[in-house]
């Protein structure tokens, strides 16, 4: 039973400009929702609010399990994650970047070794595990970001332009990984992209961000 995410009349204003205007939507458990829309319409802002990184000025964000709302505490935050468009690579090895989410959850080193090793295989970074993560190429960094998110087995996975500035082949690898998470984890996925063909391929639900609100696409 996956988590659903309910946005109730979210508003967010930056410097007097209302980016999100009473935006409401229910993201359904286990489905992939793809959000499209022009630059600067608030897609990233919306994802940060969903990830509980930012609080809206008005409105509510509710996570529901079997119809029951969950308290927005650390335990809930650890069931979801956001892959940031800029990834935010830590200045350490590839291995330790991926191990991060497990270490802070107090998971033992043997299990970390196993799980990180498996994920690195999946994203094709196994050969780079000892390398300094800041030395990875853009596409490899994006895959690292995905690996870091995958390893913690999120029930809600938020993806902000995971294939932006990535070549065709690597985009396909990343899409494959997203599909795998969906199939294996039954995770609720919300993804922002500017690629309509990719949106078509991945989306169970297609949404458009327009004038501060989400509309069915």
């Amino acid at each position, binding site marked *: 039973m996956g988590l659903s995410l309910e946005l109730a009349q979210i508003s967010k204003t930056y410097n007097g400009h209302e980016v999100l205007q009473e935006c409401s939507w229910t993201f359904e458990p286990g489905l992939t929702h793809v959000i499209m829309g022009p630059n600067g319409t608030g897609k990233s802002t919306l994802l940060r609010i969903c*990830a509980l990184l930012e609080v809206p000025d008005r409105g509510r964000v509710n996570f529901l399990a079997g119809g029951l709302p969950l308290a927005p505490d*650390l335990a809930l*935050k650890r069931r979801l994650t956001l892959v940031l468009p800029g990834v*935010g690579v830590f200045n350490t090895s590839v291995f330790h970047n991926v191990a991060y989410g497990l270490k*802070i959850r107090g998971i033992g080193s043997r299990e970390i070794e196993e799980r990180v090793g498996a994920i690195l295989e999946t994203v094709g970074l196994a050969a780079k595990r000892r*390398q*300094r993560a800041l*030395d990875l190429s853009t596409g490899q960094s994006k895959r690292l970001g995905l690996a*870091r998110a995958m390893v913690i087995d999120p029930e809600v996975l938020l993806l902000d332009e995971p294939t932006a500035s990535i070549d065709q082949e690597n985009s396909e690898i990343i899409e494959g990984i997203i599909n795998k998470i969906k199939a294996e984890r039954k995770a609720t996925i919300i993804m922002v992209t500017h690629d309509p063909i990719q949106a078509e391929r991945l989306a169970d639900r297609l949404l458009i961000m327009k004038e501060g609100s989400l509309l069915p696409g």
Partner: protein
Amino acid sequence: MEGVRAGGPYPLPQTPSPIPYSGLSHVDTILQGFISAFKLILALDPELLKIIWLSLQVSGGALLLAILLGLPLGALMALRRLPLRGLILSILNTGMGLPPVVVGLVLYLLLSRSGPLGFMSLLYTPGAMIIAQFILAFPIVTSLAHTAIVNVNPIIRQAARVLGANPWQEALTVIREARYGIITGGIAGLGRVTAEVGSVIIVGGNIAGYTRVITTTIALETDKGNFDLAIALGIILLGLSLLINLALRAIQRLGRTSSGVILWD
């Protein structure tokens, strides 16, 4: 040949000195001093070793204290909204340029028998010297730690948070990203205190075998015309400075370039 003498403003000694310079030129005196200095160093002269060891203990202790107190303060100012942060930063920046003699003087007045802290009987002890050098190192360590942590890309903090870090883990993650800058501050602080003489000579009193460190010994022995020990210590001090600077460069290179070397996993 006046002015060649390596003593600076100190007057020529009137008392008989170990080196009979009267019949020799100053250049010969210095040369002879160098030869004797190398002999002292090579022989691992116990007096020399004792002075070096105390220097390392005093400066190392001061640095340790400065890091223990300065890193948390720098981190707190960088990561949380601290009241009076601007004022504290201004005070720290002023402190980075504090003349050591002034620190020595003020600390002397505080620690002297009739001073407000006189009851602690710290004057003319290594403890007083550590406090003095701590005061000199603290602003550098704190200010550079603050700068390093403030300059960590905000996305690191967001990444830590979305991966499930609690507030403590989030702070530690950001601090760890700043580690090269923080270490740079520590080394800069060490460089400042190992080379200074003004504060430790006032609050330490330069007591033989007790509070005599490299810099104060150089000042005293030069004054006495006893150049071989002074030169030997001068060489060692330069060597220490060189080591500190090499360490600084190495850390800055590590932080900046993709050398593949990773500090602290």
